[in-house]
């Protein structure tokens, strides 16, 4: 039986990698992938806690998170394609129309 702590530490490491991806990378697609990575690390922590407490609710929540993530990816990628059609770039530094 693997201690729950190991899963939580792995989840923290993956979450930090996702945060760094959002902060460092300029390509909007990779920023999006980093967000997915963070969602996944949170899911891993939820499943680990669900197993530690023998409670099903954590896994149900992960199921809903995965569903919402799928919807979010579909809409977000559609937005990216729409932005690309007008701006011809996926660089988030170039997309600064709201800057005033």
């Amino acid at each position: 039986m693997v201690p729950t702590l190991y899963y939580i530490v792995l989840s923290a490491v993956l979450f930090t990698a996702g945060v760094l991806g959002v902060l460092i990378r300029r390509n909007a697609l990779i920023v999006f992938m980093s967000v997915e990575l963070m969602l996944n690390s949170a899911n891993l922590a939820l499943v680990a806690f669900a197993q530690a407490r023998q409670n099903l609710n954590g896994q149900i929540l992960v199921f809903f998170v995965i569903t919402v993530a799928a919807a979010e990816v579909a809409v977000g990628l559609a937005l990216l394609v729409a932005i690309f059609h007008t701006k011809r770039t996926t660089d988030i530094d170039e997309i600064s129309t709201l800057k005033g």
Partner: protein
Amino acid sequence: MELVIFFIRAVVAVIGAVAMLMSRNAIHSALFLLLNFSAIAVLYLLLRAPFLFAVQLIVYAGAIIVLFLFVVMLLGAERAEDERDQIAWQRPLAAVLGVVLLGEAIYVFFVQPGTVVRAPTAGAEDFASPDKISAALFSTYLLPFEITSVLLLAALVGVVVLHLRAPQAQANGSEPLSELPTIAPEPTVPGEVVRH
């Protein structure tokens, strides 16, 4: 034995995550993310969550990564981003903040582990078998489950609306809405693929 599998999969997951950050090519990033997702799927299996293992593989590794790859290839966004940065201090600051975040998490988990993480209770092996999950999903969580279908429908409609409007706004911003179905987005797609 479980510990060995856990460490192998954990190392694979971390390598996948870091390689996704580091690779200059967006397609490589998506494939490393796929590696990460499949490693996490195996961890779900170790955590006695076979249903989530299947869902992770089907939805994340199957659908979401394919969607990412499709969009990356469609946009031709796989080329490396240029090195120049509009805010010069952003990357060092991001690295420092990342280290602080990780250190904070490690501190909480290792210095005061009792407050956050309990020891795992050895319970039933199949406490989360698919039939128990479905029983909970269709009784206690029936309303959220139904709302999920509305959410997916909204996402579907949103994507269709976005893709109908994008080429039309480029061609002529004042086209009436009733003309939308005649403007198919397909003609722009082969041009994009050929151009890159």
